[in-house]
């Protein structure tokens, strides 16, 4: 791949993206338009995240890529391979060893540190999009801090269902100013959004970058009498026994049999390696594959 620059993008493009990232960090939660490029993977498959990662990566970085919390899902494999090929950076599956983590739909269970960057792939960056389809209108609403529509939507949920009927991509307010879409992470992950690491959000097709600097105040929208609740399956992980991690429900047979396992595969592996065993787990053996 010597025909391409380090991490695929040319330096001018990276500079343009870095400027957008800096602006995004300066105005937490604000969606910065950027001139997204066509990438060699389809729009909607992480092109925003890939461009942000490409602009942040240095040869000394160690990269981790997850999709649905797992390192071995097909698209995570594909993106990791892309950077192995175009940037020759070291890669890892261990959260703690990674300096840059690109993610789709999850925040790792293990708390991140100030030395790490978490890059999110974002399909629709606009939290107000499904209330107002026009971008011209939603940008105006953000500028005027006009978020009444969102509160009405949440209120209508409560009056209809008795609860806020949003389970993922749950809207948050950043530093008391911008309402932001945290990307389609389950709302279980929302409390982790105030963290030590830098969080960057890239939406390629929609040409937007936004960011959360370390320790930014991020509040999930709610009402005093209906406070936000981070929920997950009411089980422990059947492999490692964790009670505090987000779980995937896996169907195991035709008779409705199921088990619950950590969505964060590295977290689960580390716990099992440390000797934790869940209800259906076996003692951990180092994978040979």
């Amino acid at each position, binding site marked *: 791949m010597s025909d*391409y620059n380090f991490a695929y993008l040319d330096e001018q493009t990276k500079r343009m993206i870095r400027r957008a990232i800096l602006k995004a960090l300066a105005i937490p939660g604000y969606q910065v338009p950027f001139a997204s490029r066509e990438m060699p993977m389809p729009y909607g498959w992480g092109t925003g995240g890939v461009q942000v990662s490409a602009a942040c990566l240095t040869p000394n970085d160690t990269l981790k890529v997850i999709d649905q*919390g*797992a390192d071995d899902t*097909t698209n995570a494999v594909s993106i990791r391979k892309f950077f192995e090929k175009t940037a020759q950076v070291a890669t890892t599956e261990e959260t703690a060893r990674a300096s840059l983590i690109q993610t789709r739909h999850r925040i790792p269970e293990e708390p991140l540190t100030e030395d790490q960057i978490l890059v999110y792939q974002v399909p629709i960056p606009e939290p107000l999009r499904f209330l107002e389809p026009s971008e011209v209108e939603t940008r105006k609403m953000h500028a005027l801090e006009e978020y009444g529509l969102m509160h009405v939507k949440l209120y209508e949920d409560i009056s209809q269902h008795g609860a806020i009927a949003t389970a993922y991509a749950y809207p948050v307010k950043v530093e008391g100013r911008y309402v932001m879409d945290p990307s389609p992470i389950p709302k279980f992950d929302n409390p982790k959004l105030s963290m030590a690491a830098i969080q960057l959000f890239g939406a390629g097709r929609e040409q937007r970058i936004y960011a959360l600097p370390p320790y930014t105040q991020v509040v999930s929208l709610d009402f005093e009498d209906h406070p936000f609740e981070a929920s997950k399956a009411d089980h422990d992980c059947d492999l490692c026994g964790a009670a505090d991690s987000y779980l995937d429900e896996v169907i195991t047979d035709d008779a409705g049999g199921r088990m619950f396992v950590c969505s964060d595969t590295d977290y689960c592996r580390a716990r099992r390696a440390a000797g934790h065993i869940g209800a259906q787990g076996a003692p951990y053996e180092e994978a040979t594959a």
Partner: protein
Amino acid sequence: MYVAVKGGERAIDNAHAWLAEERRGDTSIAELSVAQIREQLSLAVNRVMAEGSLYDPDLAALAIKQARGDLIEAIFLIRAYRTTLPRFGASHPVNTAAMRCDRRISATFKDAPGGQVLGPTFDYTHRLLDFKLAAEGETPQAPTATPAPGPTPHIMGYLDREGLIQQENPSDTTPPDLTREPMQLPADRALRLQALTRGDEGFILSLAYSTQRGYARNHAFVGELRIGAVAVEMDIPELGFAIELGEITLTECETVNQFKGSKTEPPQFTRGYGLVFGQTERKAIAMALVDRALRWRELGEEDQGAPAQDEEFVLMHADNIQATGFLEHIKLPHYVDFQSELELVRKLRREAGGAAHREAAE
């Protein structure tokens, strides 16, 4: 004991190997060469160049071969390649009045200087399958004639001279570049035309058709449609003058549309404009109709709320590479989100069941 699905990496490699095999098809049939695609599937090549925004018939033909004939996939390959190319500069605007026309027709005048030149068109062919083509017969040579000397004047010039067609305001401002700056709305006409010329042919066609059927009707006459080669010139700073880099084939369509006039403007004709790489006349005509529909505000017309009048709707959804990527991404795993929905629906149903039970008890 549940075993996590591993081996994504090997599955991907194997899928790609199988894809390569399927692309080749039956090996007892001769393999297609890129040159054969370029020469014999030239309208497919033209579409890939137009929507890929890169004028290179060889690369477009290669992309079609690699994409197994899936033109949107081929356009995607071209776009992804194009975005990595360095930019040396910008050419002068091409002069379509000096086009060496292969085809030039006007539907608004029976004849005009330069004549009606049909060129290599499907029009007036009877759409009957030609089984001779399956029998591998050689095509007889078409008759030739000497082209008329001198440039072919634009038909619109005649209406312009009489002041019957609305004047376009000339401008020397550098148009925005859709591929280098994020799309900002409202978009000016230059940006709209850029988006339309690389937009999906099917989408633009359907929008144009909707205007003909009454959703923002702007009855269009094809004032002129011309297809031919134009020179591309660029200033070379070291030389201090412009040199010709080469020729490209373009399709240009100007439509004549009615306009009733407004408080400030007398009744006159207005224009829709289409300009597309290669011989791509369906696209160029459709583009002109959609361009005209999008000009309602500038011409003081009524917003009928039609899709073709809605700039944001048209521009945000015209790009088939964006559309296909986002559409197909729903094939990717979404089980984390689905799990959270599953929990929520179970919870809401539990609560609804509980409430119904309480009501019954009361």
